């Protein structure tokens, strides 16, 4: 079964990490990802640009309204996501815990995926 792990954290706090701290977290995460990759369980991974670069299209008005900023004003922001193959909720929770040890703070929202298209990007 496919799951997505949505990564939430205070982007102000993450933005206050020093470059060394950021690099250290990324290195630890890369190690976890490498193993998931070797197990054939790692799908697409994305780290998102801070929400100050976000734009929201509100479709409930006609024509749709373009707004600066993220969809939801929250204390913690969506900063990235993983797509992970796992046997069960417990299995994906284990993976999430492992990622969490590499990158503490904030929260992961785990959501099963119903439809998944890999897509194909031009090089």
């Amino acid at each position, binding site marked *: 079964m496919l799951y997505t792990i949505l990564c939430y954290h*205070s982007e102000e706090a993450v933005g206050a990490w020093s470059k060394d*701290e950021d690099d250290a977290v990324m290195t630890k995460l890369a190690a976890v990802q490498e193993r998931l990759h070797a197990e054939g369980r790692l799908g697409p991974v994305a780290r998102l*640009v801070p929400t*100050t670069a976000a734009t929201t299209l509100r479709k409930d008005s006609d024509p749709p309204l373009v707004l600066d900023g993220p969809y939801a004003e929250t*204390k913690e922001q969506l900063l990235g996501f993983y797509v992970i193959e796992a046997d069960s909720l417990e299995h994906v929770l284990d993976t999430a815990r492992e990622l969490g040890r590499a990158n503490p703070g904030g929260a992961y929202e785990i959501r099963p995926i119903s439809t998944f298209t890999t897509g194909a990007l031009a090089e």
Partner: protein
Amino acid sequence: MTDLAWIDAALTSARPQALGALLRYFRDLDIAEEAFQDACLRALKTWPQKGPPRDPAAWLIFVGRNAAIDQTRRRSRQQALPDEDAISDLDDVEEPLAERLDGAHYRDDVLRLLFICCHPDLPVTQQVALALRIVGGLSVKQIARAFLVGDSAMEQRITRAKGRIADADVPFEAPGPVERAQRLAAVAAMLYLIFNEGYSAGPDAVEAKAPLCDEAIRLARLLLRLFQAEPEIMGLLALMLLQHSRSGARFAADGSIVLLDDQDRGLWNREMIVEGLALIDKAVRHRRPGPYQVQAAIAAMHARAARAEDTDWTEIDLLYGLLERLQPSPVVTLNRAVATSKVSGPAAALAMIEPLGAKLSGYFHFFGLKGALLQQLGRTAEAREAFGRAIALANTAAEAAHIRQHLDRLAQDHPAAGRVAAGSK
């Protein structure tokens, strides 16, 4: 990450909001800072055990405010000390407090905190030092290092600056729209000063001054988060990101300057470029061009060119034309002349900068460019003279060394001073 590292990051990121709110309560910067310090000390004790609160800023405001009120009572000895337990369990107070401190309050609190650092009575370096200390939370030692002065000199500078703003009228009422826009503009200018203080460093000071660029970018992101639909703040952040993206390519291993055209673009920071370009796209939609947006758009033209020869100099020339109209200044015209020289040749560019001579007679880059243009036109003796003036005005050793390279090249190509030796190439 260790406990200390994440707590430090959380305290740093909560600082502008928390200190801004405490300043609004107490209307006194010293009391507010002391209250914030107390709250931080308590956070260092409590958070490792209990974990971080959901809203660190609200926690720090609440604890800081109580600590300061407590202090005041202690000093006045009029009331019994409050029971420690009354403020030690904070989990249940976070929610209502966070509600009261809604976005609008935070916005003006942070803006006010930044704005008091831009007081017009303060010299620019004091504004920058004060903002780094008060809003950024950098230590005096860090700031002193970035300004290449001793700790005690910087301590004095900051104390003096604080004294001045304490005497000044700090406006505490919520600003109207016009005033808010004016404050935003002043704060944006100050953030760009912080950035430039870091960016203009020579190769030997890059490491010491790099935190200034990072700090300016962090504070600009904070400002944009509070004022999400301000195209000039988007432009400012984009400009800083795009300039900073080239940091790793600006100096060679031996410390010499590498010009934009010669930089290894593989060393440019792609993440910063992506963010910068995204912000310009957002800003342009507002159709309210301003100087930061135009400068960012110019920086973006370089970021978008895979190789130096792919640079769209015609577009850059047009953008500088727009910038000249928005913000006329001899330095802008000087920069435009670089683009003009690429589009229309060195003679046109030289004609453009010659009238600036009187205003820019003390400006390194004026003579550097003038020398380069004269060199391209084969006017060797005049080029040599301009380069000589440039060296005398160089701000860093690397700048002087860079011009000396030009002179060496002139000497090689034209061994006889002032005379063009035929066939020497």
